[in-house]
Every structure is written in structure tokens, then in C-alpha cells.
């Protein structure tokens, strides 16, 4: 009677505590011997991939004077930045500025402004490229640039072998009013880059 009660109690305990880990057991000496053990593993979901832009620099064009002999001068700069992702997959880049213009013709919608001349908009072009894909990819408002990430070794000091290339150009004639030479002044704009996992 006592033996039966003990067995029932142990069985009830096992049923009521299904997640209880059982201790490993040694075998007893005999013609054969059987022991037991359990293996456990906890798998957690992945964190969202992390992305980061490194190496952005302000772009400053030297003072340019509009010349009738060079009315369409469009100085450009080239610099490098890292578009990084912690995991596998591409990145997606978009750009914004306050109140962009609608893209018209050759003008993508980005511009510089001098508060002293509220009616003058100097068009800006922004293009990206990589060593693997050197063709320039221009970004306009509402565009996105999808690319493989920069090399994981990319740093703020990296060049084209590891980093993406950003080309910024500015027109010396205004887009609005069209083709009006911009008066001398201090034109500027802040652009915001948004990088996301693709």
C-alpha cells in the first residue's frame, strides 16, 4: 500500500510540473546499465539590425563669382561616407531638406537659399556611388537609394575602397527664377540623410 502511494505521488508531481528539469541519473551496476541526461538550449529572437552613417562632412564651396563666360558653372565636391549595417542585407538611404521644390527638368528639388534673397533658389544635386557600382545615382525628394552596405571596416577616414562616395553639386544660376544668375550672398541648406535596413 505504501509503495503504491509513493508511485502515485511521484507521477502526480511529474504531471503537474511539466517544465521541471529532471536531474541526470547514473545507471546501476548490472549486465547492462542505463543512465539519463537532458540537454537544454534557449534561443532568443534576433535584435533588429543596426545601421549607422559615419563620415558625413559639411560641404563648402569656395566663393564663386558668376561669369557671363561660364554661366552654367556647376562646381561639385566629392567626399566619402560609410553606410553601415550590423547584419546581412542592403541599406536604404533617403534625403530630406525643409520645403524641397518639386523636381523639374534637370533640377531634382534640392536648393540653397540666402535669406537675403528669398526668391532665389540655387539648385543642388546629390549623387552616390560605390567602388563596385561607380555610376552616379542621383537622389531627389521621395527617392531612395538602395545599396549594399559599405565595408564593415569603413571609418570616417576611409576612401572609395571601403566607403560610399557622395557627390554634391550646386548651380550658380537659380532654378527659380529660372536661369537667373544668383546675386552674391551666403547660400546654405541643411540636408538630412536617413539610413534604414532594406
Amino acid at each position, binding site marked *: 500500500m505504501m509503495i503504491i502511494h509513493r508511485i502515485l505521488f511521484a507521477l502526480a508531481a511529474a504531471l503537474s510540473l511539466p*517544465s521541471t*528539469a*529532471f*536531474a*541526470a*541519473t*547514473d*545507471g*546501476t*551496476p*548490472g*549486465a*547492462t*546499465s*542505463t*543512465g*539519463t*541526461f*537532458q*540537454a*537544454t*538550449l*534557449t*534561443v*532568443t*529572437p*534576433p*535584435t533588429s*539590425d543596426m545601421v549607422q552613417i559615419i563620415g558625413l562632412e559639411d560641404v563648402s564651396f569656395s566663393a564663386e563669382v558668376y561669369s557671363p563666360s561660364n554661366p552654367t558653372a556647376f562646381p561639385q565636391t566629392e567626399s566619402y561616407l560609410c553606410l553601415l549595417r550590423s*547584419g*546581412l*542585407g542592403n541599406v536604404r538611404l533617403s534625403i530630406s531638406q525643409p520645403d524641397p521644390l518639386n523636381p523639374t527638368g534637370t533640377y531634382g528639388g534640392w536648393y540653397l537659399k540666402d535669406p537675403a534673397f528669398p526668391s532665389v533658389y540655387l539648385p543642388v544635386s546629390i549623387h552616390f556611388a560605390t567602388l563596385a557600382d561607380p555610376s552616379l545615382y542621383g537622389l531627389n525628394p521621395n527617392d531612395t537609394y538602395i545599396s549594399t552596405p559599405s565595408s564593415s571596416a569603413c571609418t570616417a577616414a576611409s576612401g572609395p575602397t571601403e566607403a560610399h562616395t557622395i557627390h554634391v553639386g550646386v548651380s550658380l544660376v537659380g532654378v527659380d527664377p529660372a536661369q537667373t544668375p544668383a546675386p552674391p550672398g551666403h547660400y546654405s541648406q541643411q540636408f538630412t540623410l536617413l539610413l534604414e535596413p532594406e
Partner: protein
Amino acid sequence: MKVLKTAALAMALAMPGMAMAATDGTLGTTSTGTFDVTLSLTAPPVSQVQVIGLENIDLGTQQLSGQNIPISSGERYFCAKRSDAGNVTVNITQSFNNTQGFYLISSIDANGDGENDKIPLTIYLGDIVLNSYVLLNGTAQAVSQAPSSCDASSTGLGQAHHILLSSTATNTDFAGDYSGSFSVLVAPL
């Protein structure tokens, strides 16, 4: 003489289990004596085996990422002992769908395929002389027995056997608590 011999023979036949004393011959032109040779054969002793030192193995927590993550338990030592000379067999079994593989089984069915999620597991058996074997579920592997000095605290080459669990968390696996229960059967070879 003849009568005596006959009587002696009858006694031997009537009481086969009784050891007869050797007899000397009597003095004569010839003389005959006798002696018995006996031999008792018994069944060989049954080898006694025992498995000791098994421990539960916690493979820890692995966070999924976009890459395959190797998982290893490292060597976990135990003794497969035998009372007499000879090798042993080690047979690890896991009751799961009668497959030959080993698995860690989740408590949930995250992928909705009708059975709890599982991750394949490889179990390696190492003997005391550095041989390593990939075990199949329910298939005995012959190895040398552990030294008589092997006990639950023994570790290392030449001192104890070991098992090593190996798996991989891939980007197609699902988060969850995985486990497996295994029986280790040791028998004389």
C-alpha cells in the same frame, strides 16, 4: 579380486557424485591401483557494467542573427565501466519520431507546421584514447572501458569517456526553449 573390483565399480556407478579414494594395488605378480580425476566447470561470471557521472547539459542562450551560430557543449565526462576485462558499447537513444538523428525540441510550434520546432543535434562520443565517434540515435558504439579509477569527478584523456553536443542556430530557426532527453545504455561488448 574380481568381486572386489565389481563392488568398487558398482559403488562408482551407484553414487556418481561421490569422490572415490584412490586405491593401492595389492602385492602380486601385477598390481592395480586406481585414482579419480575430477573437474568442476561453472558458468562464466556475468560481466557487470555501470555508467556513472552523467550530467544535464545546458547549452546556454543563443540569440538569432542573420548568420549561422555554432553551438557546442564542450566535453562532458562520464564513466562507462566494466567489472572484468573487455570493451563496452555505449548506445544513446532519444525517443523522437523514431529517426536516427538527435534533436533539441522546442516547447512551441512557431512555424505552424503541426509539430514543435526542433533543431538538429549531433552527439559525439569520445573514448579514453582520443577516438571520437558521431553517434546515431539508438546505435551502439564500441569503446574501451573506463579505467577502474574513473568516478563521477573524473575528467580528461585517459581518465574518462566524454560526450560533446554540437548544433547550429540558423536564421531559419525560431526563438524558444529547446530541450532533449537522452538515455545512455552501456553493455559489455
